[in-house]
């Protein structure tokens, strides 16, 4: 038990050390590293529901998109401009809307915080409603919500409509990718610490209980509804922050293709936990890293066939590695060293 806990912290520290070294080792891959932080965030938050609670959501893209628009809008607003005016030249008119470096940085951070807070309540509300459905209904219901959100965002002129919206240009002296990376890494570490703590509490147990047998959990008096909504709300917070970081990094928001892009980010966020091993802490993180590596590799070397390769990769993973890489590692470890830890203890460590 205590040993499991220390190994969690050791792993976290190792991760942190690597992450701190990364920008110095790979200075030319900064934007990929920012994306990686974003991916880790969305993978971990998806896993809170999908892996730990057994609710497969396609709707997390909702929070991602809202977060992104909110951060962009907060920046414009804190820069002292009117959003409608800014977006009146559809897509955002950057030349006449400039801000100073301090304003840019603070507005970014405040925007992220605002996105976090707002999405907590969005998650709570949507969760309290949609989480009343289960299984396929829940999956497709959230899918509908995600798709509809993008379509409606594209009709809102104040957000630039279908032409999308630009983030403010970072002023001189702001190294945006660096800033985003450190913000992203900070959030990731916060999230990891939070999850390590959470999964040891009875709250974490209840999440698993809901996954395994919700009827039983209810019969035993566990507050399943509250736990479900709050978990989704927490997931929404981190997904929204991820959305804000991603949008700021890409600079341009298209409603259906960047913000609420279901066929890409929306699916990736569940693919990553599956690759790494869902329902564990390090699985989604590992999955995000692997996914980012594979994706970049495919896009570089399999030009024209990269989606075919990605598709095949997905198929191979779900068919042959049902428990993800973590599952494979555990199986290997058991084969090599016998059952070092019982299923239960490592389950708890998850």
């Amino acid at each position, binding site marked *: 038990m205590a040993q499991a806990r220390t190994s969690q912290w050791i792993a976290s520290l190792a991760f942190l050390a690597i992450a701190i070294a990364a920008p110095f080792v790979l200075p030319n891959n900064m934007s990929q590293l920012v994306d990686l932080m974003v991916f880790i965030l969305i993978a971990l938050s998806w896993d809170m529901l999908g892996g730990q609670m057994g609710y497969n959501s396609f709707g997390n893209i909702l929070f991602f998109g809202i977060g992104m628009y909110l951060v962009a809008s907060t920046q414009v607003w804190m820069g002292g401009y009117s959003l409608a005016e800014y977006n009146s030249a559809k897509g955002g008119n950057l030349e006449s809307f400039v801000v100073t470096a301090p304003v840019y940085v603070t507005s970014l951070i405040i925007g992220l915080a605002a996105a976090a807070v707002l999405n907590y309540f969005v998650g709570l509300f949507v969760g309290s409603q949609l989480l009343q459905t289960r299984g396929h209904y829940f999956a497709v219901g959230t899918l509908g919500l995600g798709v509809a959100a993008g379509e409606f965002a594209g009709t809102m002129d104040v957000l630039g409509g279908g032409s999308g919206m630009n983030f403010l240009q970072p002023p001189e002296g702001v190294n945006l990718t660096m800033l985003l990376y450190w913000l992203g890494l900070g959030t990731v570490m916060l999230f990891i610490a939070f999850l390590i703590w959470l999964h040891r509490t009875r709250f974490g147990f209840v999440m698993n209980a809901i996954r395994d*047998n919700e009827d039983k*959990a209810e019969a035993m008096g*566990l*507050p399943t509804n509250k736990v479900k909504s709050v978990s989704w709300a927490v997931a929404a917070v981190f997904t929204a922050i991820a959305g804000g970081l991603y949008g700021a990094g890409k600079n341009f928001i298209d409603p259906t293709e960047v913000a609420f892009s279901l066929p890409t980010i929306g699916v990736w966020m569940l693919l990553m936990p599956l690759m790494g091993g869902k329902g564990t802490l390090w699985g989604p993180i590992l999955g995000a890293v692997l996914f980012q590596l594979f994706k970049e590799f495919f896009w570089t070397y399999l030009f024209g066939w990269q989606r075919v390769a990605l598709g095949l990769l997905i198929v191979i993973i779900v068919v042959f590695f049902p428990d993800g890489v973590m599952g494979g590692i555990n199986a290997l470890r058991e084969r090599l060293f016998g059952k070092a830890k019982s299923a239960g203890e490592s*389950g708890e460590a998850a």
Partner: protein
Amino acid sequence: MSEPILEVRGVSKHFGGIYANQDISLDVPKGAIIGLIGPNGSGKSTLFGSITGYHPIDAGSIRYEGREIKHLRTAEIARLGLIRTFQQTHVYDEMDCVRNMLISRPLRGGDLRSLLHHPSAEDRERAEDLLEFVGLASKRHLLAGSLSFGQQKLLEFAMALMNEPDLLLLDEPTAGINPTLINGLIDRLRQANERFGVTLFVIEHNMRVMMNLAQEIHVLAGGRLIASGEPRDIQNDPRVIEAYLGGS
């Protein structure tokens, strides 16, 4: 007998055209062990469901410790200390036995903050104790989903005791359990009743269990309560023999 902990008054419940419970009234006195028998499909499990808020009832009232509970949801009722087990086993498949037990620790308020603690050493000790008792100590780190049918049944029973209920509704606790172990179970049920004052309300088809355990038995047939009384009387009641124990 003493104060009733549970008062069921005129409860009816139908599913489509099937009247599973019709106008059932009975009391469960505090601290007693009460039995419920009846043919298959007579509405026993449905009555448990009605009591624990599994489905809304059509008519009647259900009072627990003097308080109307028919409007409450299952989890709220459970948090009042009224716990049930299921006829078909219900355990948390993907967790090991110890965790199954730890989750079952009572949670009375339903406040989320009370969930933000780690399980205490005491809880663990109690969990191990109960597992030992139902013979699952050696399986404590197996996933509950991989236990045999009977073992799951036992685990579920242990989980119910872990919850320290005031009133425990057991739906066929000994079905699929080895006869020798059944004796042990009955013993433990009596202990729980005597030492901790847990009131028991038990469905069973196994009359050996019923006769040796229950202080009073209610008999359902066709969704109606047809007889109530002490085990010996029930066994000789012609209506009960006709409907359940075996006709001429």
